C-alpha cells in the first residue's frame, strides 16, 4: 500500500519529463562542441608544436598580461565604486547603476567604435591626448581599455551585491568595539564581501580574456602588440584549422582552470552550511 511508504512523494511528472529532456539536450548542446574540440585536437599530429609555436605563445602572453592589468584596474577602482553604489540610495547612485549595466547590453563592436570616437586620433579628446604624447588606439593600452570597458560591469555588479549583503550592523558593532571606520572596512566589510567579489572577478576575467569585437575595432590585430588569443584564433583560422584548434584548446583549458579556481575562492569555511 502506498500509504505505508513514508517517503512516497507526489511527483510532478510533466515537469520531470520536460526538465529531464531539457537537461539531456543541454548537456549535448554544450558538451558535444567541447568534446569535438578536444577530439579533433587530439587527432592532430603536430598539436604540441602548434601549442608551443611562437605565434601561440606571443598571443597567450599578451592575453595574460593585458587581462591581469585590466583586472587590477577594475578591482582597484571598481571596489570603492561598488561600495559607494551599495551604500547609497541617492538618485545619482541609481543612475550610475544603469550606466554600469550599459556595457553588458552594448554590442562589443559598438563599444570599440565608441572608444575610437572618444580616444581615436580624430576623436573627442584624441588630439588632446596626442598633444601630451599619448596615443591609445591600436596599442596594447587600447587592448586594456577594451577589456576594462566590457568586463568591468561583471565585477562591479557582483561586488556591489557583496557589499549590500554585509549588514550595516556589523560595521556599527565593529565601531562600538573601538575600531575606526577605515579599519572596519578592511577588517569586516571587505572580507565579508570577498566571496562575491571573487565571483565577479572570475566572470570579468573570463570576459576580458574572450574579448574580441571591441579590441578588433579599437586596438586592431597586430601580432605581439594587440593580437590577443581570440584575435589570434581568428587569424590562424584564415591560414589553417590546426593552429586555430590548438589556440582554442589552450583557451578552453584556461577557462576550466579559472572555473575551478573560482570555486575554491568563493567557498569559505566560515560561510557554513547553507
Amino acid at each position, binding site marked *: 500500500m502506498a500509504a505505508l511508504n513514508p517517503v512516497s512523494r507526489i511527483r510532478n511528472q510533466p515537469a520531470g519529463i520536460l526538465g529531464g529532456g531539457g537537461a539531456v539536450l543541454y548537456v549535448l548542446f554544450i558538451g558535444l562542441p567541447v568534446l569535438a574540440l578536444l577530439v579533433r585536437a587530439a587527432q592532430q599530429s603536430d598539436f604540441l608544436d602548434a601549442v608551443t609555436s611562437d605565434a601561440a605563445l606571443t598571443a597567450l602572453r599578451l592575453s595574460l598580461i593585458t587581462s591581469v592589468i585590466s583586472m587590477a584596474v577594475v578591482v582597484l577602482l571598481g571596489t570603492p565604486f561598488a561600495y559607494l553604489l551599495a551604500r547609497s540610495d541617492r538618485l545619482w547612485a541609481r543612475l550610475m547603476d544603469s550606466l554600469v549595466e550599459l556595457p553588458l547590453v552594448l554590442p562589443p563592436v559598438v563599444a570599440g567604435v565608441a572608444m575610437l570616437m572618444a580616444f581615436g586620433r580624430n576623436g573627442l579628446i584624441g588630439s588632446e591626448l596626442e598633444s601630451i604624447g599619448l596615443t591609445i588606439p591600436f596599442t596594447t593600452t587600447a587592448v586594456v581599455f577594451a577589456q576594462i570597458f566590457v568586463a568591468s560591469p561583471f565585477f562591479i555588479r557582483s561586488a556591489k551585491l557583496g557589499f549590500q549583503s554585509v549588514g550595516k550592523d556589523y560595521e556599527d*558593532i565593529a565601531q*562600538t*568595539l*573601538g*575600531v575606526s571606520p577605515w579599519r572596519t572596512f578592511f577588517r569586516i566589510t571587505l*572580507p565579508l564581501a570577498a566571496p562575491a567579489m571573487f565571483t565577479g572577478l572570475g566572470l570579468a576575467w573570463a570576459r576580458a580574456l574572450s574579448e574580441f569585437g571591441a579590441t578588433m575595432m579599437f586596438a586592431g590585430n597586430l601580432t605581439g602588440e594587440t593580437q590577443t588569443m581570440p584575435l589570434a584564433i581568428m587569424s590562424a583560422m584564415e591560414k589553417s584549422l590546426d593552429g586555430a584548434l590548438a589556440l582554442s584548446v589552450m583557451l578552453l583549458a584556461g577557462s576550466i582552470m579559472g572555473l575551478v579556481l573560482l570555486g575554491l575562492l568563493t567557498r569559505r569555511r566560515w560561510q557554513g552550511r547553507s
Partner: protein
Amino acid sequence: MTTQAVASAASGWVECRVGDFHLETTWEVSPGQVLVLFGPSGAGKSTTLRAIAGLLRPVRGHIEVGGQVVYDGDAGTWVPTHDRRLGYLTQQYNLFPHLKVAANIAFGLRDRRSDAGKDRVLELTSLFQLEGLADRYPWELSGGQQQRVALARALASKPAMLLLDEPFASLDAELRRTLRRELRAMLAQSPVPVMLVTHDREEALALGDSVQVINEGRTLVTGVPLDVLGQPGQGRVARLVGVENLFDLTVQERNPRDGTMTCVGPGLRLEVPLDSQVSETGTPGGGQDRVTVGIRASDIILSKEDLQGSSARNRLSGQVISVESRPPGYAVTLDCGQPIRCHITGAALEEMGIQPGQRLWAVFKASSCFLVDENRV
C-alpha cells in the same frame, strides 16, 4: 597609564528626531548599576542607546561616558563611535561570521596579537564558559554560545559603559536566567554603568537597579523596579507594564481607621488601601469618586473553600472561565462579576485539579490592591 581610573557614572540627555519620531530622554547610571529602559516597541529605547553609542546624531543634548563628554550639541562636541569606549550588545548577536570565536572576542583589542591580548581572550573564554570553542566559526555555535561570545567581545577592551539592547530576547527562558546571572557576576567584578533595553518584566526585575518606563519618545516614570513594575501608580504605566487586573470602581466607603476603603463596581466589592485625598475630598462614607484599582495576577491566592477567618480582606467567589499555559506557570481566569486573572504554578494547578467551570475563591490582601491614577502623566 599605570592605574586604571575608577569607573565613572554615565549620564546625559538627548533630543532625537528619526523621521516623524521624536525622542526626549534623560538618564544617569552609577558604575555597577543597571538602568532598565522599559517600554513597548517603537518607544525610543533603542534610539536612546544608539544616540549614546554615536550611531545616531541627536538634534540636541549632552552625553557623558566614562567621565568624558562624547557629545554636546551646544559646544559642538562629537566623539565618533570608535572613541567612545562602549560595549554595545544587541539581540542579533552580530558575531563576525568570517572570524573564529577567539578572533571575534579579540576584535576590539589593540594588543590582540600580544601575550596580554591572548591572556585577555583566555580570561574571557573561561569567564563565559567558552573553553574549547575558540577555533569554531559563529555558525558552529548554539544561540546561547553565540550570545556569550558577543558579551565577551563587548567586554574585552573594558568599556566605560555597557549598552544592552534586548540582549537575551531570542534565547529560551532557562538560558536567559543563566546569562543574567553571569552578567550580574561580571558586573560585580568590573563595575561599569549599564543601560539595558527590555520589554520583559522578569528581566527588568532581575537585572534592574532602577527602571525608566518610556513610551512614544517620553519618559513616563523612573524608579525602583519593584515599585514601578509591581504596583505602578500611573494609568499609562500600568497598561504598559501589563498589570493583569485593572478595575474601574466607585468608592463606597472610606475607613481611615483601617487605612482602607471599600470600592464597588459591577459585580465586585473590594477593600483597597485608602487614597491620599481623604481630607481634601472630605466625604467619608458617601464618596462618588471613581478610582481604578490594580491587582497583580501573582498576588492572588486561589482556594477551593472560602477562607473565612483569614486576614485577607478580599475573598471573591467565581467560576473558572479559562486556564492558559503561561510558562513557567498557568494563568487562571475567574468570573467574579468581572474576570479576575491569577497566576499559579503547574504544581498548584495539578494538586487542585482546576478545570473550567469549577467554583473557586480568589483571595488577596487589601494591600495587594493599588490605586492607579488615570490622569497622572
